[in-house]
């Protein structure tokens, strides 16, 4: 359909053999299949994390801005939703809206500052704001957030029927949200705006030469990415019914960065697969390692070491992640020049 002249610079429309509807159906089928293998409530947790990873993929994978403070917006969404449920009302949609607006507002204000920096200062200034947010929740705002003890909350039924505390409903709602986010990001990144965002990653100076105010686009992208992260946070609150400062802790940033890289940055599918693989590693390795070390009768290192080794392998051998590696294999088999 569109001439493909390189992996980085595909045309405006995403090259997909099935169209967006087909893609969504495929993902939905995969998620349902996985939920049969893995416990349903685990799968719900995984999907919430994947939504978060997708939001990070927009910021890092598409726009090339590595942030060490994306958890701030996940946490703002989670706390905004929880605070509304405790002090406002029981309507889950209203609570979610409060969480999203809080995060979008925060991103709009902080985005004015952070988007003027890039590279190392962008990564670290985000981390600084994340640390400040974590502290705010823990100490000065402890009167409303209950600090380290966390905050329990319960949401009413969505549309009067959907109960978030039933595993099947929680799974269905989260899966629907995930698909909606995927569709939204697919459309956004496929639009001329998405092309511009990718161009900023490649060479911001040249985009400026073309007459675009890159700051405005970067700012908008930052707000979108943060709001989607807040959506993941809000869903977390609705499903878990509990938030603690852990949801806004700067240490969580590492998880999302790794998930994007394991899958392959900048392709949405990378975020899906990376998020899934990362959660599997994180949840199953700590269970499997003690079993395995009992079996082999040796003391084995915990999962962190294996993650470290995986990271080194990614950086030195498979830069493009799982999806990138598969795509490279795929293209090597086809005659060169045909679109993937």
């Amino acid at each position, binding site marked *: 359909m569109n001439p493909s002249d390189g992996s980085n610079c595909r045309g405006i429309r995403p090259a997909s053999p099935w169209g967006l509807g087909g893609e969504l159906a495929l993902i939905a089928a995969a998620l349902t299949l996985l939920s049969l293998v893995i416990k349903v409530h685990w799968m719900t947790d995984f999907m919430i994390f994947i939504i978060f990873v997708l939001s990070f993929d927009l910021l890092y994978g598409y726009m090339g801005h590595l942030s060490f403070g994306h958890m701030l917006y996940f946490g703002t969404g989670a706390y905004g939703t929880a605070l509304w449920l405790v002090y406002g009302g029981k309507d889950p949609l209203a609570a979610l809206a409060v969480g999203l607006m809080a995060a979008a507002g925060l991103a709009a204000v902080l985005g004015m500052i952070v988007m003027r920096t890039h590279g190392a200062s962008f990564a670290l200034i985000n981390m600084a704001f994340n640390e400040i947010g974590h502290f705010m929740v823990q100490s000065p705002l402890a009167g409303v957030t209950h600090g380290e003890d966390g905050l329990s909350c319960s949401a009413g039924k969505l549309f009067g029927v959907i109960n978030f505390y039933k595993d099947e409903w929680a799974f269905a709602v989260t899966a629907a949200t995930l698909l909606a986010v995927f569709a939204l990001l697919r459309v956004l990144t496929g639009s001329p705006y998405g092309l511009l965002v990718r161009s900023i990653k490649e060479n911001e100076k040249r985009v400026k030469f073309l007459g675009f105010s890159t700051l405005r686009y970067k700012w908008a992208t930052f707000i979108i990415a943060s709001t989607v992260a807040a959506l993941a946070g809000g869903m977390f609150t609705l499903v878990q019914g509990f938030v603690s400062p852990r949801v806004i802790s700067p240490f969580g940033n590492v998880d999302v960065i790794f998930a994007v890289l394991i899958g392959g940055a900048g392709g949405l599918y990378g975020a899906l697969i990376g998020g899934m693989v990362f959660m599997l590693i994180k949840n199953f390795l700590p269970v499997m390692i003690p079993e395995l070390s009992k079996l082999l009768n040796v003391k084995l290192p915990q999962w962190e070491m294996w993650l*470290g080794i995986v990271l080194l392998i990614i950086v030195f051998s498979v830069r493009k992640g799982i999806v990138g590696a598969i795509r490279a294999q795929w293209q090597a088999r086809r005659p060169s020049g045909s679109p993937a």
Partner: protein
Amino acid sequence: MIQTIVYGFTIGAILYFFSIGLALTFGTMHIINFAHGMVYALGVYLFISFLKAFGNSFLVSLVASVVCMLPVAYIVERFVIRRLYGESLDYAIIATYGVLLIGTDLIKLVWGTTPHPVNDPIGLSVPLAGLDLPVYRILIVVSAVLLFLALRLFFKRSIIGQIVIASLEDSDGVRCLGLDVNRYFSIIFVLGSALAVLGGILYAPISTAEPYMGFHILLLAFAVVIVGGMGNINGTFAAAMVLGMVMAVTGRLWSQAATTMVFIVMALVLIFRPMESD
């Protein structure tokens, strides 16, 4: 009040020991080196083991653990850092973070997760204006000042130091003179790592050793490096002392806010003096 000031300088001194290596790596190689925290923590744990082996001799154990960490630092430089030279910032962060994770897990595997306290090797206090000040803390501050002066001399007078200073300004220019810049970077990297281990050991009697100690000091040290001006040697010293003081004073007024205040300062600095390039 005097106690707070001495405490501030002590924290500042430790931060300086740790950050100087980080600042040099950033200034010369443009790498944010998370593996620095690994070298630091591993050095302190080795020190604790040596203390037991050498019958509580502080100085012998200190020298032994610094010497043992030199080859470790060299391996990290040779097989991780050097391969990342000239790469994008992201991959360097991720690879060195991987090294940090491996080191942390190794510590947990060998030494366990329980914190290890270390005794104050001197244990004396001097009375000053009606207060008791531990001699050990004063010693730390003095050694940091001595280190600062020694490094100044090193970078001004020695040929290695001058080459490094020149590379901080323009590493391509130095390369054009036919000098193998990587060799000097490697020396500087090992030197910086040794100083981090030294700082960690000096700090151990004040704090306790725990597997995640590398992570905690790294975050503070990033703030020092940024406030000090990314690879500025004098700036790093000033920033370490100022931020150490910020921590001590905030900690006295509102103990939970001590670390956060450092990040507020760092955010303010980044807002008003954004870095030109990476």
